[in-house]
C-alpha cells in the first residue's frame, strides 16, 4: 500500500491540467474548463466500465462543478496535499467519487493510470472515498449527510480556531438532503456564521428509487436553506460560465453567513442515453454501451477543440 506522505514534494506528479492562468479571459477560462470537464467525464466512464461497478449518473451531473473548482477556483497544491492554507473540498455524495478521483488525478495529486484501479483490492481508490488512502481527499464520505457535517467542522476550524482564510466547498446530492443531519449541521453553520462555507446542492432530480418528488419531496430547497440561515444562489450546473461566476460569487461573498448554491443539473449529463435515466445511478456499462459513451464524449471533445480554433 502506498501511503500519503504529506508535504513530500518529491512525490509530486505532473498533472495533465494545471489551474487556469490568472491572465486568461473569462471566455478562455470557460472553454478550457469545458474541455477538461469532457476528459473528466471520459475518465468516469472508463473507471466504472473497468471496475464493472460504481456510480456514473451522479458523477456526470457533478462533473462541471468539480472541474470549475479544481481547475480554476480552488487554491490547492498537489505537491502539498495537507498545506494548511489550501481550500478544502468535500464530496458529501461520496458514491460519485469517480469524478473526485478524476479531478485529483488530472490535477496531479496521484498518477492518472491509477484511476483504473477503482474498487479493486489494494487500490487507494476505494468504492467510497477514504481520506487516509489517497492524497487530496479532505474527508471520507459515503454515508450520506455526514460529509456535509464534516465540512461544517472543517469550516469551523478554519474560521473560529485556526483562523485561516481558506474556503470549504462541499457538494451534496439533492436526495442526500433528506438526511436529518444535513439540517442539524446547517443550523450550526448558521449559528457560527460560516461564511467560509459554500454548500453546493447538485439537483439532478433523481435518487435511487425515483424522482425527488416521488421518493421525498424536498422543494422548495432554496426556501429551506434560506430559512436555515444561508444566502442562496442558483446556477445552471452545466453552463460553465454560470458555474464559474456563481461559485466565485459564493466564495467571495463573506457576508457572515454560509452560502448555498443550488445547481440545476442532469443526471448522466454528457452521454445522451444516460441522461435523466434512473437506471444509470449505479450501473456499469457493458461493452456496447461503453463504446457508445466513449464515441459520444470523443465527438464532444473534437467539437470543443474546434471551438478553440
Amino acid at each position, binding site marked *: 500500500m502506498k501511503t500519503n506522505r504529506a508535504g513530500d514534494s518529491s512525490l509530486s506528479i505532473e498533472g495533465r491540467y494545471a489551474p487556469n492562468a490568472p491572465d486568461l479571459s473569462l471566455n478562455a477560462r470557460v472553454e478550457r474548463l469545458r474541455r477538461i470537464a469532457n476528459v473528466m467525464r471520459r475518465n468516469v466512464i472508463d473507471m466504472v466500465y473497468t471496475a464493472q461497478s460504481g456510480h456514473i449518473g451522479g458523477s456526470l451531473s457533478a462533473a462541471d462543478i468539480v472541474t470549475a473548482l479544481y481547475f480554476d477556483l480552488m487554491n490547492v497544491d498537489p505537491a502539498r496535499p495537507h498545506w494548511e492554507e489550501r481550500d478544502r473540498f468535500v464530496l458529501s455524495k461520496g458514491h460519485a467519487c469517480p469524478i473526485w478521483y478524476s479531478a485529483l488525478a488530472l490535477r496531479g495529486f496521484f498518477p492518472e493510470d491509477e484511476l483504473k484501479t477503482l474498487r479493486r*483490492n489494494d*487500490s487507494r481508490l476505494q468504492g467510497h472515498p477514504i481520506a487516509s488512502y489517497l492524497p487530496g481527499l479532505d474527508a471520507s464520505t459515503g454515508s450520506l449527510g455526514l460529509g456535509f457535517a464534516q465540512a461544517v467542522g472543517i469550516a469551523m476550524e478554519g474560521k473560529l480556531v485556526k483562523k485561516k482564510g481558506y474556503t470549504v466547498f462541499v457538494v451534496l446530492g439533492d*436526495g442526500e438532503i*433528506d438526511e436529518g443531519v444535513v439540517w442539524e449541521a446547517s443550523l450550526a453553520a448558521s449559528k457560527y456564521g460560516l461564511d467560509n462555507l459554500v454548500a453546493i446542492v447538485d439537483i439532478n432530480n433523481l*435518487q*435511487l428509487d425515483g424522482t425527488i418528488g416521488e421518493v421525498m419531496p424536498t422543494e422548495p430547497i432554496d426556501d429551506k436553506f434560506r430559512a436555515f440561515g444561508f444566502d442562496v444562489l442558483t446556477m445552471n450546473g452545466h453552463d460553465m460560465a454560470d458555474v464559474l461566476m456563481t461559485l466565485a460569487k459564493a466564495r467571495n461573498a463573506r457576508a457572515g453567513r454560509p452560502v448555498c448554491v443550488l445547481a440545476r443539473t442532469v443526471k448522466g449529463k454528457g452521454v445522451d442515453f444516460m441522461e435523466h435515466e434512473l437506471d444509470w445511478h449505479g450501473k456499469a456499462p457493458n461493452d456496447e454501451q461503453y463504446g457508445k459513451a466513449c464515441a459520444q464524449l470523443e465527438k464532444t471533445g473534437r467539437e470543443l477543440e474546434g471551438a478553440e480554433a
Partner: protein
Amino acid sequence: MNFVPAKIATRRAFAERMTECASTDKDFVVFESDLAKSTYSYLFKEKHPERYFNMGIAEIGTMGAAAGMAAEGRKVIVCGYGVFITMRAVEAIRSFICYPHLNVKFLSSHGGLTAAIDGVTHQSTEDIAFMTTLPRMKVLVPADTAAAKAAFDIALATPGPVFTRLTRDPLYELYDSGEEFHLGGSKIVRAGKDVTIASYGDMVFQALAAADELAKGGIDAEVIDFYSLKPWDQAALAQSLKKTQALVVAENHQKRNGFGYEAAVWVLQNTPVPTRLIGLEDTFGESGAYQKTLEKFGLSGAAIAEKAAALVARKK
C-alpha cells in the same frame, strides 16, 4: 465440495418471501429509506403500494416512524443496509423498538464483507455485535435463499424485534426449499469427529471449503450452520463438542464481540475445549472482489482450514 451457485442474493429471497406473505398476512407494512431497488423491497411496493412507505434517505427518522406505527399495534418490516440500520439508527432501535418490545423486523442487506466492492462505508462488519447486544432483539443470519425465505417466516411469526442479516451478492445454495428452520435452531451441514467449525451466513460456505481442505490431511471436520444467532443452539454445540473436543468459530464480522465471543464464553463456562476464533482482527475491510477480500483478511476457507489444523494438532 462443488457449491451450487445461487441465482439471487439472500436479500432478494427475503424480499420475495415478504411479498408472497403479504397477501395472506395483511397486518404488516414495509418501511424503506430510498434503497428499494437494492433491498428489493420494490417487489412489495409493486403489489401493495398502500402498505409501503419510502421515507427518503433518512434512516433515523425511518426508524422512529416505524416505532411509532408499531406502537399502534402494526407489524413493521424496515429495509436497509446493515451499516445504516444497525449503527446510524441504533439508538432508535434500542430505546424505542427493543425496550418496548415492538413488532419491528429488519431486512438488513450488505452484511459483513459481502458488500466488498462498495468499500468500508457500506460493509456491515459490526452489526452482529450491536444487534445481539440489544436486550429483546432476535438475530437471524441465513446462509442461502431457502434459509432467507424461512428467516422471513420466523421473523414474522416471532413477537418483538427480529434482525435478519443478508448478503449483497448471490453466493451459493445449500438447502432444499422444504427444509425446516426455527428460532434458536442450527443445522449440521457436514458431520465430522475431529473439530467443530461453527459458522453462519456466507461463511458456512467457507467453513465447508475448509472441511474439504482438512479432509485431505485426514482431519474430519463437523460444520454447523448457526442460522439463528440469538437465541442460538447451545445444545447442538454441546453435542458436537462432546465428540470433537475442539471448536473453531468463523464469521464475516469483527472477531471482537461477534458470535465467536459469545460461543467462546459459553464454552469456557460449560465445556472447556481448545477454541479458535476467526473474524476481522480489529481492522476495517476495504474495496475489492468478495472472495479476494475474504482471503486478504484471513476469512477464506484456506485460512479456516489452516487454523483448524493447528488446533487439532494442539488437541493431540
